[in-house]
């Protein structure tokens, strides 16, 4: 006769022997692959497991164990980011998990402000002995550091694609007046005969976005990353426009507007229109418009001054000076026209800045994002090699 075994009621804690702590950090942080069966099925799993270990140490009222675990955790994350810090996947993975760990420490802190969305069962899981607010501050600083590292990594990957893909590669045929670049290939590849195209950039954005989604990164954080990526694309493109004579023509304006519209389409497709990413392209959009509008009469000058509110006077004048007609329908911009613009802009107190700071990083925030996951249901997948943890 088969007697059905009643499943034990777990409290959502994990116990380990003190001497196993280095093994825990090694298997859960240092040796963990950012892509695998368990972490892909349950994004944030390492953070939940770590928090469940903290809970048991708190339950034992063992302040030394809590302190030691939190210190080892933070040092472990720092160590893996030092070792594999140029790998986007690793950095994204630990940014997501550090944030999730921070959210857990808040959600189960016992502070009312963080308990609004908890189920009653989740409320029973709050820490009872220790106030970890100071550790939350340390983790939040760590998350900021990881975010900045993430931005540096994606900047290094995007940088070589931007000028080629946004400015040099011709996506629309027959407007440039320059020799046509042959038939456009239907299939898009990252490098089109060794040069990057707009498609390369879009594919790279897709790869970044899908990695962050798979890691269960907070949607609000993904938005900030995307805004930062778009800022880098806009700033690098505009700076090159301001430095190269061959980039300031009517047809380049056309090209840039088309490319920008493709980037906007990508935002719409990914539901990121409210991320503030589009707005970071405004200076570039206005520079592209400036390349296309008429530049002769006083009315033209007035229109330019009211249109280009995201460009400095220095940038506007630079574009007009560099402007090079590529075909017989276009004319040089006269010196008197540029002087008219300068006169009109005189009382606009803007910075004398010409180039944008392409290294600028918008300050990041990590809004509290509680999870519906029930800790008592979490099991330890065999592939993590954490057999020495006991569910309590």
């Amino acid at each position, binding site marked *: 006769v088969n007697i059905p075994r009643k499943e034990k009621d777990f409290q959502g804690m994990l116990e380990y022997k003190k001497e196993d702590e280095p093994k825990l950090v090694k298997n859960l942080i240092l040796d963990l692959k950012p*892509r*695998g*069966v*368990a972490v*892909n*099925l*349950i*994004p944030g799993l390492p953070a939940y497991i770590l928090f469940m270990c903290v809970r048991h140490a708190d339950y034992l009222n063992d302040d030394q164990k809590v302190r030691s675990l939190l210190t080892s955790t933070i040092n472990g994350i720092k160590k893996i980011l030092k070792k594999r810090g140029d790998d986007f996947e690793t950095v994204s993975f630990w940014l997501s998990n550090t944030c999730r760990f921070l959210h857990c420490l808040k959600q189960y802190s016992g502070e009312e402000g963080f308990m609004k969305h908890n189920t009653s069962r989740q409320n029973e899981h709050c820490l009872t002995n220790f106030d970890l607010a100071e550790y939350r501050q340390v983790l939040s600083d760590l998350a900021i550091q990881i975010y900045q590292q993430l931005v540096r990594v994606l900047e290094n990957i995007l940088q070589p694609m931007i000028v080629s893909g946004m400015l040099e590669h011709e996506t629309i045929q027959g407007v440039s007046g320059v020799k046509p670049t042959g038939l456009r290939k239907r299939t898009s590849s990252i490098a089109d005969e060794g040069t990057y195209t707009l498609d390369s950039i879009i594919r790279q954005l*897709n*790869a970044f976005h*899908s*990695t962050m989604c*798979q890691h269960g990164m907070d949607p609000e954080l993904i938005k900030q990353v995307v805004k930062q990526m778009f800022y880098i694309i806009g700033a690098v493109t505009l700076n090159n426009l301001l430095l190269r004579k061959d980039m300031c023509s009517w047809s380049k304006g056309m090209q840039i507007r088309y490319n920008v519209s493709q980037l906007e389409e990508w935002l719409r497709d990914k539901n990121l229109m409210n991320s503030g990413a589009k707005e970071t392209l405004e200076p570039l959009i206005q520079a592209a418009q400036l390349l296309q509008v008429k530049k002769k009469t006083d009315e033209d000058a007035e229109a330019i001054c009211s249109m280009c509110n995201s460009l400095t006077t220095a940038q506007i004048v630079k574009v007009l000076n560099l402007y090079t007609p590529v075909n017989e329908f276009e004319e040089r911009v006269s010196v008197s026209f540029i002087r008219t613009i300068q006169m009109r802009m005189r009382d606009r107190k803007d910075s004398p800045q010409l180039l944008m700071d392409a290294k600028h990083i918008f300050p990041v925030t990590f809004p509290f994002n509680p999870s*519906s996951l*029930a800790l008592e*249901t*979490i*099991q330890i*997948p*065999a*592939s993590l090699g954490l057999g020495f943890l006991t569910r309590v």
Partner: protein
Amino acid sequence: RLGPELPLREGEEESEEEEGGGGGGGGGEGAFAKSAFQLTAEDVYDISYLLGRELHALGREPRAGLAARVARLQFRVVSVLEMLEALVSEHCVAAEALRLERDSLRREVDGLRAQGGRAGS
């Protein structure tokens, strides 16, 4: 000469191309359409992500007791996928070992044939 080709081999070669070109990231829906023998560990991770999303959505349904049952199912799925990952990886390694063995035997045969030909003439 060499006898009938095993259908497995062709599939194997195709999967190699897949790995080189498309690997990493991606939506993952494609992994479900693949032949089992072409699966890579990366495909298993994509499948894992998709199933995880669906289970997560299911676990948020307000029906009583459902969340706990979904959670139990979730870890069963993790176990099954871990097995699948092990099989796929093992299969790739075994196939690679057999391919190396076959190639070296073929070279040996070709070498012996060439020698035999020279000796005969």
